[in-house]
């Protein structure tokens, strides 16, 4: 009978011997625990009431928690598989030496248990420290006061511990599966020799191109937010599959071509790089493709969430141009009720003077909102039972155009973001308006609203407005025709004053509407900009925060994948370099060869990620426009910036991990020197 603690000691010594592999793994485990803990904490409801937009934020974090669960599990599985692969021969040795499968399983259990213990302990501590930092960050994003310190609920700790326990158990099961289904002999043998370098496969390459093309095509084809939303997931899937296939077939073919190119191939640095690459291309390609995908995700998340937060004040300004906005919807049968507008204006003025305050920057707009189906031929209608999200769904905002925006009678100036919208005339029942496009700068108000439905902005003549309302009522049911009057003003006072002054307004205005209209459809809303703002800040800031957290996890995945690749290859190449040194290869030649080899594979994923980002741009821009972010040049700039910064960071990671490779390769050639 073995002494107690045998397996514990064996696993500890095994992990220490493989410290080069385990240290980074444990670090990433700690990071995952910390990140998960924080998001768990933020989703646990602690933000409600402690921060502006706390409710919105909690919803976002709950969503973020689910996303993280998925990614952390995948990430840990992926990196863990590298680890196991490196250790298979060691397990094989134990097995040959007579350890039973049960013994091996116990060993695996111990190892995963130890990583879990260390990871959880340090991760929770790190998480606790970072929760505070996260709260401060979120408070900044929502422009709210620093919330008081709050100790996380025990449930948060428990939830984190349980989640990672589950993941660790699965990891352990994976290790055992790999051990049990392989014989000892197979475990010990794991050299890549004995197989030919893979053949170039045109079918796979073609398939990869097709997938990539399909994904890119979907992105380029998206015309409006609705179609963008529908094709996003499919496009992402195509691109991922395409990337893997292309990296696989492409790199094999590249190696083939490079080998044919004699004057390139027979150069010291290229010679060694190309020939070793062509052998491990399959594994290599998978690593590179995952690096590429992860990098693309980081880039997309960061550039879009950053753009949202940079553009947020514009969004709020267009949606709520003044401190207080009173929106009144009239019955389409009545149309714009000027009398009522006057009455409401007086009501507000009276109320304000009663409160002893005065309004500034008073403004008003009349806007007819039409919701219906736009048919390709320029007609517009809505069947009462058509859903509002069906194909061709459209919202038209009609305003009275003044000054240079005043069109001819029976005409309208038009603007839309929809690329597909090409029509000269628009027909509502018995009225036809001819359209004339105007540039975007001329359009005031909400160009891209927080709506996923395509939008058209029209400017018509004063006298055409009532006619249009009547004509529209013939083809669109009442609820699709909404004459809206916005009355807005600033209150240059403390936020507290704004709140107390504006609060009773809603009730008073309702009162008046109810008195005046005994029947029909009418509506009212009073918005206080800052109140709405908080929700925006919470939504956009929360998404940025999640973007950063997920990027951190993805980045550490990139680091680990690169690092493990370098270490694995380092061990494989060690003997090769030793032979070459014996044949008279200089030390600095090894250095330059290694650098060459790194650079060759360095550019591929990042260039491809850049390409992905470029092709995803139209899709992202469309999706962002549903968040009110329609400044494309800014988005492009931010994407470019994110790409540049990411490339630098990536280069740094590659240098550091490349050094790990060089240390392994270089050190052993020193050993063979036996000085």
């Amino acid at each position, binding site marked *: 009978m073995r002494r107690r603690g045998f397996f514990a000691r064996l696993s500890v010594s095994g992990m220490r011997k493989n410290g080069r592999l385990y240290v980074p793994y444990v670090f990433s485990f700690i990071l995952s625990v910390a990140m998960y803990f924080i998001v768990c904490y933020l989703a646990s409801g602690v933000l409600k009431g402690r921060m502006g937009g706390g409710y919105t934020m909690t919803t976002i974090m709950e969503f973020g928690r689910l996303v993280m669960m998925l990614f952390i599990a995948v990430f840990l599985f992926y990196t863990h598989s590298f680890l196991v692969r490196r250790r298979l021969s060691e397990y094989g040795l134990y097995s040959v030496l007579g350890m039973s499968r049960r013994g091996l399983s116990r060993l695996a259990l111990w190892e995963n248990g130890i990583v879990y213990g260390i990871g959880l302990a340090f991760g929770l501590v790190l998480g606790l420290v970072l929760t505070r930092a996260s709260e401060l960050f979120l408070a900044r994003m929502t422009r709210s006061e620093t919330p008081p310190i709050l100790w996380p609920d025990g449930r948060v700790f428990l939830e984190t511990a349980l989640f990672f326990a589950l993941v660790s158990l699965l990891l352990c099961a994976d290790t055992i599966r790999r051990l049990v289904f392989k014989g000892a002999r197979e475990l010990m043998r794991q*050299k*890549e*020799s*004995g197989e*030919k*370098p893979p053949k170039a496969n045109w079918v796979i390459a073609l398939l990869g191109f097709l997938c990539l093309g399909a994904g890119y095509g979907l992105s380029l084809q998206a015309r409006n937010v609705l179609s963008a939303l529908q094709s996003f997931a499919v496009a992402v899937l195509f691109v991922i599959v395409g990337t893997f296939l292309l990296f696989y077939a492409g790199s094999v073919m590249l190696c083939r071509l490079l080998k044919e190119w*004699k*004057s390139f*191939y*027979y*150069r*010291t640095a290229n*010679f060694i790089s190309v*020939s*070793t690459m*062509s*052998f491990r291309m399959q594994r290599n390609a998978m690593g590179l493709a995952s690096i590429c995908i992860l990098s693309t995700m980081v880039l997309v998340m960061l550039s879009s969430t950053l753009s949202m937060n940079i553009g947020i004040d514009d969004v709020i300004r267009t949606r709520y141009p003044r401190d207080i906005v009173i929106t009144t919807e009239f019955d389409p049968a009545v149309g714009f009720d000027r009398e009522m507008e006057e009455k409401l204006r007086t009501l507000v003025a009276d109320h304000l003077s009663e409160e002893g305050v005065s309004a500034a920057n008073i403004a008003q707009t009349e806007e007819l909102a039409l919701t219906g189906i736009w048919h390709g031929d320029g007609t517009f209608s809505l069947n009462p039972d058509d859903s509002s999200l069906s194909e061709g769904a459209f919202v038209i905002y009609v305003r009275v155009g003044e000054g240079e925006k005043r069109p001819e009678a029976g005409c309208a100036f038009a603007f839309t973001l929809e690329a597909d919208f090409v029509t000269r005339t628009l027909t509502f029942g018995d009225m036809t308006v001819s359209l004339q496009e105007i540039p975007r700068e001329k359009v005031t108000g909400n160009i891209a609203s927080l709506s996923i439905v395509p939008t058209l902005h029209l400017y018509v003549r004063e006298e055409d407005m009532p006619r249009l309302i009547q004509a529209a009522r013939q083809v669109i049911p009442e609820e699709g025709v909404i004459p809206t009057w916005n009355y807005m003003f600033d209150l240059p006072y403390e936020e507290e004053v704004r709140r107390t002054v504006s609060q009773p307004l809603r009730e008073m205005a309702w009162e008046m509407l109810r008195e005046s209209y005994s029947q029909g459809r009418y509506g009212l809303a009073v918005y206080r900009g800052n109140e709405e703002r908080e929700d925006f800040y919470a939504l956009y800031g929360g998404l940025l925060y999640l973007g950063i957290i997920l990027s951190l996890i993805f980045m550490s995945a990139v680091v680990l994948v690169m690092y493990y690749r370098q270490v694995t290859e380092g061990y494989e190449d060690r003997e*090769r370099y030793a*032979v*070459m*040194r*014996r*044949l*008279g*290869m*200089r*030390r*600095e*030649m090894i250095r330059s060869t290694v650098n060459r080899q790194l650079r060759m594979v360095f550019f591929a994923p990042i260039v491809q990620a850049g390409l992905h980002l470029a092709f995803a741009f139209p899709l992202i821009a469309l999706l962002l426009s549903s968040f009110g972010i329609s400044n494309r040049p800014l988005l492009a700039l931010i994407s470019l910036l994110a790409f540049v910064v990411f490339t630098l960071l990536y280069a740094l990671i590659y240098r550091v991990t490349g050094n790990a490779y060089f240390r392994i390769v270089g050190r052993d050639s020193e050993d*063979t*020197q*036996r*000085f």
Partner: protein
Amino acid sequence: MADTMEKTDNTILEAKCLRRVYTSRFGAHPVTALDNVSFAVTEGEYIAIMGESGSGKTTLLNILAAIDRPTSGQVLLDGRDMTTVSEQHLADFRRERLGYVFQDFQLLDTFTLRDNIFLPLVLSEVKPETMEKRLRPIAEKLGILDVLGKYPYEVSGGQKQRAAVARALIVSPRLILADEPTGALDSHASGQLLDTFSEIHREGQTILMVTHSARAASRAGRILFIRDGRIFHQLYRGECTDEQLYQKIYDTLTLLSAGVERT
């Protein structure tokens, strides 16, 4: 052949009082693999080194090839003390002047035989056309023309060995160091390889070959016997035929195993 012990102007390589002590990391028992070994190699000589397993033959060859450094003593290659040359230059020396045929071939599994043979030339940045030109006659002589495109694991041990020889020959080295080149071969294949060695020797190539086989050694012009890290005897061909030399070697080996000291 200049079978003389005196140093002449044609001395390619000279070992002076070589000593090599292996100390293991934990310093338990230092092993003296070489002890006061001195000898000279004249241009055009064909020397065989014989000795029991563990007697220090590979160690000696490694030191001569500047892969390993002696604990004390000197190695002069073309009059230049290799033990004081910087590591960078050693690599160049090794690549350009020496052809080493390793005991275990040391072919790289990711290269075809052709590329394996080209490796030292690639390291010296020779043009591809020149490499191809140099390869042809050598590959032809060694009979590996039709397997050049294959990977090491796809060919027989003998073919691997011949590729390793080709890799040593292709740099037109001043000196060929071969560590048991026939070790992995059957009698027919080793006969072929030895014929090749004899042929290139006739063309003026200097060869230093470690071998266990008296048959192989009998092709050489001089035989050094090593035991426990010392050269304890050497034989000169003189006017002997291969067969006579073989008999002499055989006798020496018998004496050797009988444990009789002769110096």
